[in-house]
């Protein structure tokens, strides 16, 4: 009698990053057409190849239809009612972090991402993106000593246009899907990483995305290239203020791993999820894909998805190189009226390729949490293996969980394994922990983090603790 209500209280947690930074911004007018795209490209002083890339993508997008196959329900998005470029006004050329508007530094401080020289996080280089532009990137000189390039994608377009021209859109082509096409047409900023041959990146790299404006969309684009025998661990975090309108976030992330290279990409997504009635929140439509191009190359995605009103996201791996490895570790927590349709695609093309999928969905409140995944074995993927495990946890009696595994095999000499389970936090489990003196809230949070342990173990150490705390926060509330 008590516990159903208690659980409902426990999963209510006010959003801590809902503040708005009061800062003068430069915004262009609402709407989307060729002129807007030209304007964005002009503002960013882009080379012609990129403007062409954008315009081509826009033409494709106009012919495409918004996908409706996901288990998601939401009000139609009016793409002409969105601002596609918004940037905080600041001095033209910034030579050091000390010249960054203190309000921006303060914003990132409040988010726990100090950027200034004295306070910056040790051993993690951060690229901070505020609305449409990158504000600052730390540790650049240290990284440059190792030949590692870590900068905003806008800078990369200026300074490393050969790499951009060579790789942009090669993993996620503009025509891939509706949101990828939109992103390709209007993407504003994001991060660029290049790890040269044989280099193990000396520190973790991290991008922090902050949406500040209520009426502009965020369309970032990230490109990571790991040359032969190199490795890098990358983390992205994201938050947004609380608005009662929905903000569109449509990002594209492309990863390229060459022979023996390894990329670990971890996400802690905490966009504003909307309120208890489902008003406001971010619409998160993201295309993330990695190409294992070489022999024994490896791409590992781990994600902790706790925010957004709508999540539509399937970080995927194209396993081309022989013996290449793809991994996907995911925790998705939904509460109130949040909806998540998330999973992965593992496309085995090369022989002896291997993939692992571990997905943990937690649904509380009236939320809807779906795993959707595709495992495909191509004709040449002989001796390839996949293992998938999809577990769902339900909290309360109004939440729902779905699992949609798609398995396609054209190769009889390959193995695909799929395991799935659904559980509910039972009254007996809670009572057992309580009868040992453990508070109700802590008992719930212990069980949830226990449920997610396989995934948390995959996160870089410092972020695993953060993710654990984040889930506990989301599940914290007043008891009784």
């Amino acid at each position, binding site marked *: *009698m*008590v516990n159903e209500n208690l659980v409902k209280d426990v999963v209510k947690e006010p959003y801590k990053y809902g503040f708005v930074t009061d800062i003068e911004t430069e915004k262009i007018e609402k709407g989307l057409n060729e002129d807007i795209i030209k304007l964005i490209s002009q503002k960013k002083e882009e080379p012609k190849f990129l403007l062409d890339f954008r315009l081509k993508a826009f033409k494709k997008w106009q012919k495409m239809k918004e996908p409706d196959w996901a288990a998601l329900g939401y009000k139609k998005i009016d793409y002409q009612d969105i601002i596609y470029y918004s940037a905080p006004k600041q001095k033209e050329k910034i030579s050091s972090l000390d010249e960054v508007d203190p309000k921006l530094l303060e914003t990132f401080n409040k988010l726990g991402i100090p950027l200034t020289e004295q306070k910056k996080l040790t051993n993690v280089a951060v690229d901070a993106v505020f609305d449409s532009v990158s504000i600052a990137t730390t540790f650049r000189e240290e990284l440059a000593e190792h030949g590692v390039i870590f900068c905003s994608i806008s800078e990369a377009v200026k300074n490393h246009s050969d790499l951009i021209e060579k790789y942009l859109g090669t993993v996620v082509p503009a025509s891939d899907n509706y949101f990828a096409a939109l992103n390709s047409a209007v993407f504003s900023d994001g991060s660029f990483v290049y790890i040269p041959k044989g280099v193990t990146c000396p520190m973790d790299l991290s991008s922090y995305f902050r949406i500040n404006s209520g009426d502009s969309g965020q369309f970032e684009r990230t490109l990571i290239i790991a040359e032969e025998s190199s490795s890098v661990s990358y983390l992205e975090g994201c938050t947004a203020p609380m608005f009662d309108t929905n903000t569109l976030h449509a990002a594209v992330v492309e990863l390229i791993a060459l022979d023996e290279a390894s990329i670990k990409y971890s996400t802690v997504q905490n966009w504003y999820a909307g309120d208890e009635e489902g008003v406001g929140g971010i619409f998160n439509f993201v295309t993330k894909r990695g190409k294992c191009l070489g022999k024994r190359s490896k791409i590992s995605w781990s994600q902790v998805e706790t925010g957004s009103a709508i999540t539509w996201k399937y970080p995927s791996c194209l396993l081309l190189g022989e013996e290449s490895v793809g991994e996907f570790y995911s925790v998705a927590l939904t509460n109130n009226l949040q909806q998540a349709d998330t999973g992965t695609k593992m496309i085995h093309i090369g022989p002896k390729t291997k993939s692992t999928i571990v997905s943990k969905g937690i649904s509380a409140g009236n939320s809807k949490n779906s795993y959707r995944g595709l495992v495909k074995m191509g004709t040449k993927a002989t001796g390839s293996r996949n293992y998938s495990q999809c577990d769902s946890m339900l909290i309360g009696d109004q939440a729902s969980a779905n699992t949609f595994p798609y398995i396609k095999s054209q190769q009889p000499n390959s193995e695909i394994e799929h395991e799935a389970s659904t559980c509910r936090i039972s009254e007996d489990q809670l*009572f057992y922990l309580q*009868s040992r003196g453990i508070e109700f809230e802590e008992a719930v949070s*212990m069980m949830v*983090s226990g*449920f997610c342990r396989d995934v948390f173990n995959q996160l870089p150490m410092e972020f695993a603790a953060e993710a654990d705390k984040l889930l506990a926060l989301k599940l914290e509330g007043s008891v009784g």
Partner: protein
Amino acid sequence: MQIKMKESDPILEIENLFASTDNLPILKGVSLTVYPGEIHAIMGRNGCGKSTLSKIIAGHPSYNVTNGDIKFLGENINSLEPEERAQSGIFLGFQYPIEIPGVSNLEFLRVSTNARRKFLNKEELDTFDFEELVKEKLEIVKMDHAFLSRSVNQGFSGGEKKRNEILQMALLEPKIAILDETDSGLDIDALRIVASGIKKISNAQTGIILITHYQRLLDEIEPNYVHVMSDGQIIKTGESDLALELEKKGYEWTDNFLKET
């Protein structure tokens, strides 16, 4: 007349307790008083309300107390949450200890022990200090250190689960322990280990309630009092020889008591 003059105040006083679940009455006027140093055994058929009584003392949310009081150390605890009862020194050893996948046994034991220590104004233990303490307590139940790194009760055998319960009792040092069929599912060796563990943990300041069907546990731990429950009431109370008589004559013998009273 078994109420003698006692030197100290009772640990637990249950007075005319009525309780129900889903409007179904289960307890129909139970009274029971436990003084420090006493061991009480409660026996009775399945479904007589023994387990329910133990869960109600521990505060299980599925049961409603409709009448009567439970006093612990002189305070009425009817409105306390299960965790508050546990922190203040009430321990329930489960008949079927619950499996909690993913939660490490060591961490669970540490959080639990610290919750109790906090209540007692004792310093909370960090991982290292706790390891020391738990090593010492593992001896009592002859458990291997490897149990600590597994998930709470997951994949434990019946005997291992019960020993894990006694390990928790040893760590929490309760004022009163209610052990619900702790002996069921144990082989003779495990029963001895569990029984000797219980004896080591209990002392002149603690009270123990053993809920059991079998004399064999009572051979190891001799109770001061034996109560027979039937249909939600204690229908007979005696000393340890009552259990022996019960073993000989069976529960049918006790059916007459209800008619007499």
